[in-house]
């Protein structure tokens, strides 16, 4: 296991370096200027600004400096906000996003598991069909549409919840539902399939035959075995959550990282775009690694098979 994790960490670092280089060179290809009101600046000022941010150096030198700084965790300074550190900006922005993402995934997973289990236990019943309808709708309807509908009905028309901004728990409800919808749908669907498969296994018949109560069969044998593969879809779900926060934060005007990312794209603030991209990529790589390792720990069959398909 240790060797497996070691190998994975090495390939993770290589992947990250490639992403960092790719991001850097893509940024160099971007059209447009990063400075506010460049047309009002004199030529001397532009030269000075370029000099200040090291944009006059050859690309190779810039690349070397960038990677060197990256190594010590220095992501550079923002072009737009008077040279504030990118890492500071990410630090103050990550709180809202993390809170929202965490709340969505916890809530979504609980509801999704619950729906999936009920649907499988009451297979082909009204509850089952209802769950499947929710699952198809949750996967299909874009989160910004759900957000818009809620904003209009719950926010504007009925006035039940605040329409936007970030000021206490009530403000988190609508964004959380909008992001969690896809989590609920994916997990409910996956859990239902897994449950149905486990319910057909011989060991369930054995458990029933030896006189175990049906509650014990469901809880100790079925749900436990069915929930293991859920971990495999956590990777894609985290990605869905990231996508979700980008647009949902925009709609609900939440001061999170996603909103900052989208705005820095609009303003050509390269260091912020690069920093956020790297941050998201690192998060993504680490989550995938954790998922794989956890899967190996929970299900020994995977570990024995060499950890890969």
């Amino acid at each position, binding site marked *: 296991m240790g060797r497996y994790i070691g190998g994975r960490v090495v*390939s*993770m670092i*290589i*992947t*990250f370096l*490639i*992403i960092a280089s*790719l*991001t850097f060179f*893509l*940024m160099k*290809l*971007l*059209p447009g200027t990063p400075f506010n009101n460049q047309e009002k600046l004199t030529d001397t000022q532009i030269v000075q600004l370029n000099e200040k941010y090291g944009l006059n150096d050859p690309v190779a030198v810039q690349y070397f400096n960038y990677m060197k700084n990256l190594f010590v965790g220095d992501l550079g300074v923002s072009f737009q906000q008077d040279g504030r550190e990118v890492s500071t900006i990410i630090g103050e922005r990550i709180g809202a996003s993390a809170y929202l993402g965490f709340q969505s995934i916890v809530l979504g997973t609980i509801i999704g598991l619950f729906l999936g289990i009920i649907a499988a236990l009451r297979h082909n019943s009204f509850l089952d069909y209802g769950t499947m309808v929710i699952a*198809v*709708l949750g*996967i*299909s*309807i*874009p989160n*910004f*549409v759900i957000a*818009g*509908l809620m*904003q*209009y009905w719950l926010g*504007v028309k009925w006035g039940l919840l605040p329409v936007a901004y970030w000021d206490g728990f009530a403000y988190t409800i609508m964004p959380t539902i909008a992001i969690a919808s896809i989590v609920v749908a994916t997990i409910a669907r996956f859990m239902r399939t897994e449950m149905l498969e486990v319910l057909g296994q011989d060991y369930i018949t054995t458990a029933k035959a030896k006189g175990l109560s049906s509650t014990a069969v469901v809880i100790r044998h079925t749900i436990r075995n069915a929930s293991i593969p859920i971990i495999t879809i956590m990777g894609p779900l985290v*990605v869905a959550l*990231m*996508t979700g926060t*980008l*647009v949902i934060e*925009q*709609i609900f005007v939440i001061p999170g990282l996603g909103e900052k990312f*989208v705005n820095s*794209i*609009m303003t050509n603030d390269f260091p912020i*775009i690069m920093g956020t*991209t790297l941050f*998201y*990529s690192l998060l*993504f*790589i680490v989550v*995938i690694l954790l998922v794989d390792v956890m899967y190996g720990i929970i299900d020994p069959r995977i570990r024995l098979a060499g950890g890969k398909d």
Partner: protein
Amino acid sequence: MSMKQEKLDELSDHMFQPANTDVLENEQIAGESTGFWKDAWRRLKKNPGAITGLIIILIIILMSIIGPGMNEYSYSQQDLSRAKLPAKVPVLENIEFLGLNGVDIRGTDQYEAKGVDEYFWFGTDGFGRDQWTRVWQGTRISLFIAAAAAFIDFVIGVAYGGISAYYGGRVDNILQRIIEVLVGIPNLILIILFILIFEPGIFSIILALSVTGWVGMSRIVRGQVLKLKTQEFVLASRTLGATSGRVIGKHLIPNVLGQIIITTMFTIPSAIFFEAFLSFIGLGIRPPEASLGSIINDGFKSLQIYPHLVLWPSIIISLIMIAFNLLGDGLRDAFDPKLRK
């Protein structure tokens, strides 16, 4: 003479026909044979969800073709004197609760107030452009982008996955290492970076979506081909002297086709979603061109007062996504031999 003999005499020769001794004819199968595709179609027909999805898709495709031409307005024709009108439809305007009578949410008949005699079936947007024409024009562009992205994914994915699995060894090793790096990058971030570099427009969106989109397809094709290429019929074909191209084209691809179609069915809605997402955060289609995402984004700015601008495109994009997901699910069940009873 016994009774037995008498009975036998009653059976004359003309009552008999010679038995069929032709071996080939004996081998013939009486019933109509059920091929793979026929079988799949038969099972698909039994799935009401999939058929509903298929019908919705066909209707929406039809509407995206004829919809923009159904009235005299164009998608880019501005007229501020008729801006932000609610929906008004002949005949249906008399049924109050449908809300298609041109009365806005504050209860004023905007058509009367602005002195407009025409009917705008989905209302008009902030520049007085006909929302009906724009929505169907946007649907057309969204579908075109999705279809083109799915096609590129299909071509690259099948070729990449097929080559990787068929040749195996070092080729496979190198190609799979590349995939590993690509999978490590969150595709949304990559799409956004690429779209920033290209000039905004339909083709850069298609390109950006294709940058990572083919990876999923190539993985599925690779897995299937790996499984198939060791089977006897492939060996037989090779023994008979078939070239690699023939083995891939005639034996491997047709057997993977079911999986490829299913994957494509799920690529299309995800491409539509990403396009809408990009247009929504302002990186997609530029006005006056419209896609469903950009129309919804425009409508969001005045959601509180003119909800109809968001409502119709939202319904259509949701319908497209639901329909493709239902059809994809149905096809997966229809093609999956494990579920065959």
